[in-house]
């Protein structure tokens, strides 16, 4: 049962290492002559003004919240979907009820204007 996960456990770190290998080769082959001009931030030739890491507008926060709600609830639905073939009709309808509540939440967010990109 755990054997596929052992493969994943080897596969993902190896993917990381193999992805890093061209960078290592480039480190050997490529020239490395940094200077202040070269390392400055690119902004179409103009000196950059002000901080980059600034506060961003609240819209992103609202979308992130809606995302979390929906993604977590989608994860709740997966066990139901796996068991679906063995379920009776009324159990399926309970799942549907859950989705309807989810849709009501979406409708609420929609009516409150949370889905408008300002």
């Amino acid at each position: 049962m755990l054997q596929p996960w052992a493969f994943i456990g080897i596969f993902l770190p190896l993917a990381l290492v193999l992805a890093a290998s061209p960078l290592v080769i480039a480190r050997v082959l490529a020239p490395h002559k940094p200077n202040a001009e070269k390392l400055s931030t690119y902004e179409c030739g103009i000196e950059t003004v002000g901080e980059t890491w600034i506060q961003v507008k609240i819209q992103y926060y609202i979308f992130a919240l809606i995302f979390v709600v929906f993604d977590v609830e989608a994860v709740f639905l997966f066990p139901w979907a796996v068991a679906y073939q063995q379920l009776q009709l009324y159990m399926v309808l309970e799942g549907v009820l859950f989705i309807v509540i989810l849709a009501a939440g979406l409708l609420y967010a929609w009516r409150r204007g949370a889905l408008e990109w300002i």
Partner: protein
Amino acid sequence: MTGLSFNDPFGTLGNLIRTFLLGLGLPAPWVTFIQFLVGSVVLIGATLGGGAIVLIWIERKVGARFQDRLGPNRVGPFGIFQNFADAVKLITKEDITPSGADKVVFNLAPLLVVMSVVGLWAVVPFAPSLIGADLNVGVLYLLSIGGVGTLGIMLAGMSSNNKYALLGALRAVAMLVSFEIPMALVLLVPTMLAGSMGTVQIVDSQATWFVALAPVAALIFFISSVAEIGRAPFDLLEAESEIVAGYNIEYSGMKFGLFMVSEFLHAFTVSALTAVLFLGGWRGPGAETYPLLGLLYFLIKSGAVYFVIIWFRFSSPRVRIDQLMALNWKFLTPLALAVVVVTAVVQKLAEALGWPMTPSLLGANILLALLTLGVLRAYARALRQQVEAQRGPDSAPAGAVGGA
């Protein structure tokens, strides 16, 4: 899995390696470890190498044809070695880390992006006996590893200390994160139809392809996948005419190359996933007995979907971010919820009433699609009447917004 059979080269090869290593006197867990290691290297090499060299060449050639150009044709026959030349160039370019950047995160981000894309291939069944790992939660694995790629893009944009990159990263946050919702919801449909989250099981149960049972779901999955890979018409996160190169603006040399490879590979990956989840994967006449044939079918189906993605890319203008978010939250997400409900209810109803499965599911999907189109039409009409009422009766038609 007994003995040698030339019908099944992959299984035979795996068995040969295993018997050879066991014959050397290694304990069984070590043999498994080495087998996995070899499998991983082959799979990563094939995807990364194939992605870097073949896919980019194909995309450039096909895209050139869409734009009435020739594409690369100087290096090698039909320009096929163009990407080797590009790779050599990228490797020998100076690698710049801007002075204000967060160095660790800046260098980690491209690796994460590549890892996430390559990681998706671990659960893609190429042929009946050819798969990295047959996880029983394959679909969830796809979602979660796909999320790592989004994280990588966000880290790349945030750590660059560049305002264009920051804008790209913020767009990536809003967009990639949002499009995971319809994708996750619509992945419930193949899960329900197959009764399992494992990709092998999903392919096995596609005696009739799921695209025939759930065409709307397939379409939603395809659209949100195209958005997820950040391709035109959804390439807001690297919109070159607005924010120069978006999240990867400060990257140069091979680190940029990694982003590029992962983008092309991701496009092919989602094509492959569409093929696996909705187009029957390796299924086709004779695929069970000859796995090589199954691999061929799989590549043909993925290639067909990939062609459509390239077609998308070279023929559609970029959408605005508010349009994009509206498309996702007000169209795809409710539709995905509706598809899940319709599939769940109709299949059980058909079972209870003794209707044939495929026609009733297909009919329900077509009905749903028509209903959606009707709602969209009514909405568009209402919008147009609103605009016309504002303009007065004898002004230009509503289509000519640009002239106002």
